[in-house]
C-alpha cells in the first residue's frame, strides 16, 4: 500500500507539515517495497484549489493512505469517495522518518 505523508523538507528528519494542500513536500512511502519518494508539491503556490490539486497528484500515484496535520473542507468528501484513509496528527514535533518507522513497526 502506498502512503503519503506531508512534509516540510526532503529528508527523513523533516517535520510533518501541518497543512495538506500547501505542504512543501509529499513523501510517498510504499509499504510493500519500502521505497520512499519525495515529491515537491506543485500546488503550493496556487491561489486556490491547492487541496484538490494535491488529491489529483496523490491519487494518480494510487496512494491509499494520507497522513497530515489537517484536511480542508473541500478534501474530505473527495477522499471519502476515493476510499482513501486519512490520518491527522496534531503533534507538531513528529518527523517523517519517525512516522514511517511507526507504520512499519505496526506490521511486525
Amino acid at each position: 500500500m502506498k502512503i503519503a505523508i506531508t512534509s516540510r523538507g526532503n529528508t527523513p528528519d523533516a517535520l510533518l507539515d501541518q497543512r495538506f494542500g500547501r505542504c512543501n513536500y509529499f513523501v510517498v512511502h510504499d509499504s510493500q517495497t519500502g521505497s520512499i519518494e519525495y515529491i515537491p508539491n506543485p500546488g503550493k503556490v496556487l491561489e486556490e484549489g491547492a487541496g484538490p490539486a494535491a488529491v489529483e497528484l496523490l491519487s494518480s500515484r494510487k496512494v491509499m493512505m494520507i497522513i497530515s496535520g489537517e484536511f480542508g473542507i473541500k478534501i474530505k468528501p473527495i477522499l471519502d469517495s476515493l476510499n482513501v484513509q486519512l490520518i491527522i496528527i496534531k503533534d507538531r514535533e513528529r518527523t517523517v522518518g519517525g512516522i514511517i518507522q511507526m507504520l512499519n513497526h505496526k506490521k511486525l
Partner: protein
Amino acid sequence: MSPNLKRPRKILNPPLVKGFKPYGPALSQGRDAIMMHFEEYEALRLCDYDMLNHHDASQEMGVSRPTFTRIYASARKKIARAFVEGKQITLEGGKVYFDSDWYHCLDCGCYFNNPEMSLPVTDCPLCGHNSFTRAMPTSPLDSEEISTGDYCICPGCGKEIEHIPGIPCNAEYCPVCQTRMRRKGNPS
C-alpha cells in the same frame, strides 16, 4: 429570485451492491433499468432500515425535512415501478458526498477515519493499537460543517444567524431580542 441550488446530500453508508435484477419468465432484463440515486437509497435505508423518522433522517443527510420526504417518495415510487413492471434497479448518481466518521487513537493521539464504511474499525492504522474512541464533534469534525449560504434574519433588530437545514426559520428565536426569525431574502 434565482432557483435554489441542490444541496449535496450526505451518504453515511454507500450500498454494497450496484443494483438488483428480477428473475423468472417475462424478463425485461438489460432493457431500460430504473436508475435509483444514492440519495434515494440512503433515504430508504435511514427510514425503513434504521427506522428513523423523516425529521431525524433529514438531519443525517443534511437536507430539510420536506426535501427528505420528496427524496424518500421518489425512492418508493421507483421501487414500486421496478417491482410491478419487472425492471432492474441500478444504484448510481445523484448529488451526494460520502462522509466517514473520525476516530481518535488513545495510544498515539492521532485522528483517523474509516474509508471502508461498511467494515468496522479494528485498530489504529498508524500504531496498530486497538484503543480508540469515536472523535467528538469538537475535534477535527468542526471544520466539516458545510455552509449553505442561507441566513435567518430577525425582522425586529436585523440580527442574522446561519440557517441550519431541517430547522424552520420561524422556529428559531433571535438571540438578541427573542423575536421569531425569518429567512433572509424572503419577502413574505
